[in-house]
């Protein structure tokens, strides 16, 4: 018989005693990484989960940069919102060059000359290859009142003295499209935020009351939500926008539009709040709060809503794009904002007909920021929604 792994029958078993000190909790001990996860706050867990969604993270950063940019639009835009360049009407975009005849000059544009094509009566711009107009940075250009507080004239970039710099072309009044897009961001981006604030408040109050109290209020709220969700939003927005008196000032119209956008949008949020509250109100801590004599507004606002705030924020983020698109569409149709307030929708009204697009396609440039912002909000919302429940 050759050696087998088993000991021979009857022989004593080999004995082994570990010399390491005995610790009965060794199995329950966690690695430092595990401790970090288990003791992390909810917010931290959310952040970790959110960080994994690379696209959402990038979108969040992109949007943050955009929102920071609207604080200093005056500085970033090479021209003012309304400054007209009568000599350059419908001028096409200019390219930025770095080299001239093989030698490095730095960023510059070629000067242009306008001639009128007598056959088509269109302005034709030709580049003058010997006219080099270097761009200036942190320079003095169109004067503006920063935030309406103090006068300044510093711009991030401006054309050479008596030169021109229309990176995205000009419109029918010779206004720089790029500058107008930068200024338009102010309105287009804030309208979504203000609108969502309105719908957030309405959604939490109505949804909260419906979910917490139930009964007749719930029934009525449910019906109203159903009705509002079954009416196509754009025609209703159109109707509401059309009834705003012509005599209102543009700023009042702006507030009116945000109110309209918010007034019809709260239904989704209210539904989310209601269904959450329906299950949460049975929890013991709610009963405890009730027994201690807390009012329902306190229970809802202090104990219930914070528990699923992250969900609400995610839901709200996803509905911002709809508002931005809604404003753009309304303004495009001439029912929304009115000049001199300028949003991306207002800019797009310039590109209303096919002939304009055929001749001056650069007037469609404002669509690009619209698309980017909508995409970014969608990705950000997706990421937030995934991160909203980090314990899952």
């Amino acid at each position, binding site marked *: 018989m050759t050696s087998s792994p088993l000991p021979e029958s009857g022989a004593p078993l080999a004995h082994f005693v570990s010399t390491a000190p005995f610790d009965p909790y060794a199995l329950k001990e966690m690695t430092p990484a595990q401790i970090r996860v288990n003791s992390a706050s909810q917010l931290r867990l959310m952040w970790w989960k959110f960080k994994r969604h690379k696209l959402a993270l990038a979108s969040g950063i992109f949007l943050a940069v955009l929102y920071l940019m609207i604080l200093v639009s005056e500085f970033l835009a090479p021209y003012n919102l309304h400054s007209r360049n009568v000599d350059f009407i419908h001028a096409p975009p200019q390219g930025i060059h770095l080299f001239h005849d093989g030698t490095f000059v730095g960023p510059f544009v070629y000067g242009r000359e306008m001639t009128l094509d007598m056959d088509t009566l269109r302005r034709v711009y030709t580049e003058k290859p010997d006219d080099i107009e270097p761009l200036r940075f942190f320079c003095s250009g169109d004067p503006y009142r920063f935030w309406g507080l103090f006068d300044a004239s510093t711009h991030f970039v401006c054309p050479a003295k008596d030169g021109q710099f229309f990176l995205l072309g000009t419109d029918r009044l010779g206004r720089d499209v790029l500058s107008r897009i930068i200024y338009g961001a102010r309105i287009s981006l804030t309208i979504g935020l203000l609108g969502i604030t309105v719908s957030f408040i309405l959604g939490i109050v109505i949804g909260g009351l419906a979910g917490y109290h139930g009964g007749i209020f719930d029934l009525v709220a449910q*019906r*109203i939500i*159903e*009705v509002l*969700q*079954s*009416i*196509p*939003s*754009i*025609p*209703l927005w*159109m*109707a*509401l926008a*059309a*009834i705003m*008196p012509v005599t209102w000032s543009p700023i009042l119209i702006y507030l009116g539009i945000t109110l309209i956008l918010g007034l019809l949008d709260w239904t989704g949020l209210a539904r989310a709040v209601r269904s959450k509250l329906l299950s949460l109100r049975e929890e013991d801590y709610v009963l405890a709060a009730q027994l201690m004599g807390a009012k329902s507004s306190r229970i809802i606002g202090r104990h219930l809503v914070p528990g699923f705030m992250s969900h609400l924020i995610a839901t709200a983020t996803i509905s911002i*794009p709809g508002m931005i*698109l809604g404003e*753009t*569409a309304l303004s*495009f*149709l001439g*029912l929304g904002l009115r000049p001199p307030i300028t949003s991306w929708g207002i800019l*797009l009204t310039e*590109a*209303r*007909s*096919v002939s304009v*697009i*055929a001749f001056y396609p650069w007037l*469609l440039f404002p*669509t690009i920021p*619209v*698309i*980017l912002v*909508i*995409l970014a909000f*969608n990705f950000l919302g997706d990421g937030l929604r995934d991160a909203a429940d980090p314990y899952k």
Partner: protein
Amino acid sequence: MMMRYILWRIAAMIPTLLIISALIFTIIELPPGDYFESYISELQAQGEGVDMQEIEELRAQYGFDKPPILRYFHWVGGMLTGDFGYSFEYQLPVNEVVGDRLWLTILVSFCTILVTWLVAFPIGIYSATHQYSWGDYGLTFLGLLGIAIPNFTLALILMYFANIWFGISIGHLMDQKFLGEPMSWEKAKSILEHLWIPVIIVGTAGTAGMIRRLRANLLDELQKQYVVTARAKGLHPFRALIKYPLRMSLNFFVADIGSILPQIISGAEITAIVLSLETTGPMLIKALQSQDMYLAGSFLMFLAFLTVIGMLISDIALAFLDPRIRLQGGSAK
């Protein structure tokens, strides 16, 4: 059982429509003044004399001297008997002004839904079964792009390219010579030739949303125990997909019409205005701008009615598909 469900569902529609009509009436009543006031000031601006007698008569005829609540009942009562009021702008009964437009709106919306389904269904299934593949990412991104591009820009760009590539002008819904003519084969053909552009434009946004929701829904279903069991017992993946999860998500597919229909009709209105289609869109915006309240109100009511009916149909179809819903009766949804 089925019959009872359908009847209950139709009955539930009535209060919804009543609330909608009250809401719409309030909206069109809100602006100060009425059509006659803007009409009079317009005439005066043009330096023409105003026949106050005639205007007062018209006012009395349409009950503008009565309190709003009476006018509301007059309006709703009229609609029930097929009288939609009078368009002051066109000086014709609303029924005559509207003409084919309602049917064309229905046609555009219906075709859009069909196309949305045809496109979203295979893509949604592909995305769900090939989760996190390049195809999934690419198609999802394309769908998102469809949401992000404003309808009207897409309409303008398509119009431009159709002009360049095919040399056709794609505005309108039919050849202009057929306008106001009775339906004929020629006219139907012309409509079909023009129909695809608005359908594509309106469809893009709805399709994307539907793909996303179908994908999420099917993914949930595919992770359930019964699918794992079926696969573990050796069922072919394709059959394991077709047999149950797909049928489950089909329910959702039908139910989802409730959320895409308002979106489609919204999109159709804007697109119609840009492309000047012979649907309700362009007329609605004109009526809103000139305070032609009966016309605007009827259009809004009609659009709301269309969505409510669409949801009714989807609910009934869902009840046929899914026995759980008809057994629960009223508490469905």
